[in-house]
């Protein structure tokens, strides 16, 4: 009988805490009528976990769980998106009459899944984290059960997600067969030592993993679920989904491809380059003709995944850190934009058409002004944070010799100005058609304020976040 040594769980404390708090939230939900309490627990959880993150680093379970700066950075993004989304939800779920406590605990579970993904040092853990995240999000997407669009969103997300995870599994299984292990570092070691880089089976399995991750980050051509799901899902969940799972996908992409498959860098960059270009192209071009703002933002988030992929393409640490920096900034501006979409929703008024924004600057100047900031940030116009994000990406692209790719990206980002400005144009340059009442609340106000301030402050003083992102990739 082998002696079983209890591993040191220190680095995992944030995850364990989050799990406990999620369970606690579930229990509280049973006992308390006022579901806002659950929301508060959710936010407190995010704060506590965020606090706990600072002290945690190390590997547990023989490298299956890796808590390093890299994962830490992503976990901060997850927790940010979690807490901001919860803040947005409080009023929204009441309006949609789905004010259940499970909503918040599912968000916590989903975040837990993301954190597990970001820390995964093993393909099995990765798969399970991904499923945990995905299953929670499927439910959340379909949370408004009486709304057929929500059901449809959930169904589409679910079917395609399951399809994609089949690809993932097949890739994992092939990788396992080829390398005899599922541990990322072991895979890397094996590949480097045995020099089987050009084996078609290996490339197949690697690319099947890429397919699954591309699905999560909604990269073309695996993006098609995103607009439909984003449109149908409850808006705060859309905000959550457009940031959290996407960032988790990138976290995994960054770790798996730069660790396990680092010997195949040329092969996977060859593939990701067209994916990135297509993603930018399709996202930006399709966003132009959208009339539903959620759908427009969905395409925009597709396009942003394309930009972020540039960081991955460079294949070096600088690139990865620029990608992370971008996602961090993207989290704020995208959730900020969705936040405005959320507060435009009120009983009996969807507020999802871009035309609903007509004259918003006249009726609600503050909301319009904030939306303006988010739109310009998404376009990448200084002095907003979006510019810093793009700038860093382009810098790392140029540094890695992909100047032409940077040119392509800037041209698409110029195209993107068209549809972002369209929103601004509706708000500022049209007369209000109908009286739009905002369903503002303190929590959503806080969320928007945080997002807006972050967008501006990170735009003007980006030093801290850049340093953070650089530190995160130091190994």
């Amino acid at each position, binding site marked *: 009988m082998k002696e079983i040594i209890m591993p040191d769980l220190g680095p995992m404390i944030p995850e364990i805490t989050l799990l406990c708090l999620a369970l606690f939230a579930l229990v509280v939900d049973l006992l308390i009528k006022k579901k806002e309490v659950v929301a508060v627990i959710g936010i407190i959880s995010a704060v506590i976990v965020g606090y706990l993150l600072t002290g945690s680093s190390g590997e547990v379970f023989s490298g299956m769980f890796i808590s390093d700066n890299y994962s830490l950075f992503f976990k901060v993004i997850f927790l940010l998106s979690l807490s901001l989304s919860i803040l947005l939800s409080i009023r929204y779920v009441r309006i949609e009459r789905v004010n259940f406590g499970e909503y918040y605990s599912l968000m916590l579970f989903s975040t837990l899944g993301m954190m597990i993904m970001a820390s995964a040092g093993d393909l099995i853990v990765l798969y399970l984290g991904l499923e945990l995240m995905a299953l929670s999000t499927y439910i959340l997407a379909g949370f408004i059960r009486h709304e057929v669009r929500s059901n449809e969103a959930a*169904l*589409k997300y679910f*079917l*395609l997600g399951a*399809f*994609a995870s089949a*690809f993932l599994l097949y890739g994992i299984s092939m990788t396992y067969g080829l390398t005899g292990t599922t541990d990322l570092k072991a895979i890397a070691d094996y590949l480097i030592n045995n020099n089987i880089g*050009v084996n*078609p089976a290996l*490339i*197949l399995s690697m*690319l*099947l993993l*890429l*397919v699954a991750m591309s*699905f999560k980050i909604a990269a*073309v*051509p*695996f993006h*098609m*679920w995103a*607009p*439909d799901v984003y449109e149908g899902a409850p808006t705060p969940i859309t905000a959550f989904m457009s940031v959290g799972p996407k960032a988790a996908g990138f976290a995994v992409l960054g770790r798996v491809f730069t660790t396990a498959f680092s010997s195949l860098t040329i*092969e*996977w960059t*060859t*593939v990701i380059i*067209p*994916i990135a270009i297509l993603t930018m192209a*399709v996202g930006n*071009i*399709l*966003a*132009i*003709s959208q009339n539903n703002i959620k759908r427009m933002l969905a395409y925009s988030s597709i396009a942003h995944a394309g930009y972020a992929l540039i960081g991955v393409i460079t294949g070096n640490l600088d690139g990865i850190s620029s990608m992370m920096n971008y996602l961090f900034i993207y989290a704020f501006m995208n959730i900020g934009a969705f936040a405005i979409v959320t507060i435009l929703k009120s009983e009996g008024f969807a507020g999802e058409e871009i035309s609903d924004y007509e004259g918003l600057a006249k009726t609600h100047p503050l909301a319009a002004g904030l939306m303006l900031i988010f739109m310009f940030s998404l376009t990448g116009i200084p002095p907003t944070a979006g510019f810093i994000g793009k700038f860093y990406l382009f810098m790392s692209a140029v540094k890695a010799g992909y100047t032409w790719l940077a040119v392509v990206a800037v041209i698409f980002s110029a*195209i993107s100005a*068209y549809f972002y400005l369209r929103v601004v144009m509706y708000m500022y340059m049209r007369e209000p058609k109908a009286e739009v009442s905002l369903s503002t609340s303190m929590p959503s106000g806080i969320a928007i304020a945080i997002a807006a301030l972050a967008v501006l402050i990170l735009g003007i003083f980006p030093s801290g976040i850049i340093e953070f992102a650089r530190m995160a990739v130091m190994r």
Partner: protein
Amino acid sequence: MDKYVLIPLLPLIAFFINIIFGRKIFREKAHWISTLAVLSSWVISVITLSEVVNGKVINRDIYTWIISGNFSVSVGFLIDQLTAVMLIVVTTVSSLVHIYSIGYMHGDKGYYRFFSYLSLFTFSMLMLVMANNFLQLYFGWEAVGLCSYLLIGFWYEKKSASDAGKKAFIVNRFGDFGFGLGVILVFLTFGTLHYAPVFGGVQGIVGRTINILGYDVDLITLMALLLFCGAVGKSAQIPLHVWLPDAMEGPTPVSALIHAATMVTAGVFMVARCNPIFNLSEIAMDVVAITGAVTALFAATIALVQRDIKRIIAYSTVSQLGYMFLACGVGAYSAGIFHLYTHAFFKALLFLGAGSVMHAMAGELDIKKMGGLKKYMPVTYWTFLLASLSISGVPGLAGFFSKDEILWRTYSSGSLGQVLFVLGAITALLTAFYSFRIIYVAFHGSFRGTHEQEHHLHESPKVMTMPLVILAIGAIASGWVGIPPLLGDIIGLEHSDRFGEFLAPVFGGHHPSEGSHSEEILVMTLSIAAGILGILISASMYLRKTDLPERIGQRFSSIYKLLWNKYYVDELYDFIIVRPTLWIANNVIVGVTDGKIIEGLVNGVPAAIGRFSQWLRRVQTGLVHQYATVMAIGAFIIVVIALLWR
């Protein structure tokens, strides 16, 4: 600061005061400040003249205007003999016109404006003649153009007036285009724009060439011709003469001052000023002479048939300016300037006389509708007659001396000169003819206008006739400073051609005419004969056989029409410049290049992206199977790419 600065400065101050306060404060008294300013300038000019006569030449920089790299140019004054003459001409005529205008413009609602413009003009013209460098000359050049523009279009409500002003400015710009390039060429050649070093150094560049469009062109010739472009524009020579007749839309005092006596002679002044450059280029000199002679004849022929009193005088001006250029072109600069000087008096007189007539006729210009004015306005008649005699070259009057000198100097300048002399003589005949045509048609015979007009006829007030009288004195006597030595000997004058001698330092020494006395007498006789003959023909046609002009007109109707329509030059320009430019602007640029090509691209690319976007939307069918299929195909393709790439 010395007193010379005050010469231009006083009118400038008057301009500012009048333009700012005139409308609200001075109103009907706006003339005071302007007239006083110009009279003061006149006084200082006279003092200056006396100084210059005593041999003082002033060349002084006031301040540095523009510095850029090695380019540096000042505002400064060069007061030499030539300038002194011009100062007197300008301030004298200007003063008289100011005084005349007090009566003529009385009651006009733009009274203050008129006087401020006059002051501005006086300032500009003085700056022009006093300049000691090319750029300041250019400044004055353009500034007088501006005043001309403002004053021609003074009655801006009339479309024809505002059209004429605009036309004057733009046509002048064509000349200035060349002039400006000439100035630049001067700078690039000499590294300075000051007269003294340029004229001093011009000998050093003889024979240098410059490459233009692959041809080597003589530098001096090019420079001279470019400068002459400006003169052609300003002095209304062919082919840029078209603006001057139209400029008669302006108030008549303006025509007298600007379009007869001073501004239009700026071209002559400039050519004379630049004589060191012109002298070194045969070609340029010939061009100047030919342009002058041809213009003289050309304009005179048009003047034969015109009926608008001011237009006739305007064409006469063009013609006389041609004489001046002819003189310059044959190297007789002092003769040119002499004619400029005498012409200022008699031509200003003619215009002011015409103005007086218009004043009486309530703005009527058609001489066919006048007649017999002699008895209604005697002062006007007699002064007008004197001016006409003077311009016709009747011996003893100012015009005779200057014109005779030009003709003689032309004749004696060589074979080309003899050809040009013939043109000049014919012009002299024609000049006398059309000048007296006005006298006979307008002042003799019986009145042909309406009854109302007849009732209204009166002699002009003193303030208007007084300048006429003064100018008439000038028209008679101003020539006496330049009596040809030939005649001087006869009447026993020691310094006969004092004018030429006075200007000699400027024009590189006094060149007494070459050629024999007998030839000179012949030329003089011819010129007198031409003048007398012209008067006689005119008299016979318009006093005795009054139906003859009609008959001739019918007999040679095509020629008559050609002349009546001024050789269709305006129409020609309209056809080859104005219309094509507007056509290009409207149809090519707005219609095609900007409208279709550039904007087509600018709007087309986004529109294409938009259409592509709409098309691409249809791919997103909302169908899960399709999404999954795309995923599968995508996965297939990326694997294929990765496998085949190696």
